[in-house]
């Protein structure tokens, strides 16, 4: 019994230390896999989530950035947000409503916000729609810092939506993105696999 308890508590300690809580996600997204092994940067990330119906959400980690973006957008787009709304925006990690519906969403309680079905930020065509303004303000908020522009889309998302989102970035002169993927090994025998094997070999010597 004692040995058993020892082991179980060892496992418990391991999980407590190794755990990293799942972040709050607006929608469930099953993203594709790729051979890329780069880690997702933790800080200063601006994440666009696209679900399989093509709804677009923006997420920012940094509450300060969220606050300043809310203030910027409020001014430039005449949203008529109250300070309480902006505070609510600062606390909600992801937004997926058109500008017209933003005030309504932010007036809700945080619990309600989670449960309401958000229609997504409109990105109707290659002009980038409202997403263009989101990115523009995010860009000016993060000015001077190295931001990673992350795109997380579902396997089944249709290409035109992706194209429009990329277009919204391009119109803001942002040409470097990171696509969120699951890691998988390079297939054996391919050029990339050979290169990686050589690197491992060189590392051992």
């Amino acid at each position, binding site marked *: *019994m*004692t040995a*058993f*308890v020892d082991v*179980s*508590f060892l*496992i*418990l300690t391991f*999980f*407590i230390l*190794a*755990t*990293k*809580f*799942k972040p709050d996600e607006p929608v469930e997204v099953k*993203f*594709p896999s*790729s*051979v*890329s*092994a*780069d*880690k*997702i*940067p933790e800080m200063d990330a601006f994440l666009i989530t*696209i679900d399989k119906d093509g709804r677009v959400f923006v997420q920012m980690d940094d509450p300060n950035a969220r606050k300043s973006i809310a203030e910027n957008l409020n001014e430039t787009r005449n949203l008529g947000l109250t300070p309480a709304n902006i505070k609510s925006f600062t606390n909600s990690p992801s937004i997926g409503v058109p500008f017209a519906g933003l005030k309504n969403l932010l007036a809700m309680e945080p619990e309600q916000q989670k449960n309401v079905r958000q229609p997504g930020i409109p990105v109707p065509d290659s002009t980038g729609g409202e997403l263009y303004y989101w990115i523009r303000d995010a860009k000016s908020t993060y000015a001077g810092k190295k931001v*990673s522009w*992350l795109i*997380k*889309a*579902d*396997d*089944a*998302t*249709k*290409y*035109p939506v*992706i*194209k429009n989102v*990329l277009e919204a*970035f*391009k119109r803001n*002169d942002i*040409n*470097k*993105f*990171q*696509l*969120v*993927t*699951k*890691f998988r090994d*390079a*297939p054996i025998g*391919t*050029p*990339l*696999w050979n*290169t990686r094997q050589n690197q491992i070999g060189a590392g051992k010597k």
Partner: protein
Amino acid sequence: MAAIEEGGGGGHKGPGVKKAKKLSTRVDMTPMVDLGFLLITFFIFSTTMAQPTAMQLIMPKDTEKPEEQTKVKASGALTIMLGKKDGLYYYEGDDPTKIQATDYKKIRDVIIQKKKNTKPEDFVVVIKPNDESNYQNVVAILDEMSINEVKKFAMVNISPVENELLVATEKANGI
């Protein structure tokens, strides 16, 4: 006088004094183990073990000026088109009528063959997803670029002519 009488003076205990019972030091651990396993279960479910990775994608800046645009030699170009229902089509050079159907497994050999047969500085893959293709296809084909170490590739909007040919091929194949 002041002496206290100690149990008969003989050193051995009298019949009324009980021998102190040795208490067991063992504790019932079952509730603790229960709680421990509850916590283990909780942490197992709430944890994210596999960290997602990031795939770098760098797009060229849109430009109208012809002198800033990258020229592609027709001989070194391989155009891959993505259609609906995971369909994949390709043609070599600049003649879209030579369109051929393939799939995500066979495309690797096509790319490797083409890479072998062209000068490295001329080799370029052009990726054209049409409106019916999905994100998974796009990532899969971009991934194929890094798997085969294709240095130059571009994601371009499909032209109407190519799209028509693509749809016609799909129809001919009964997709």
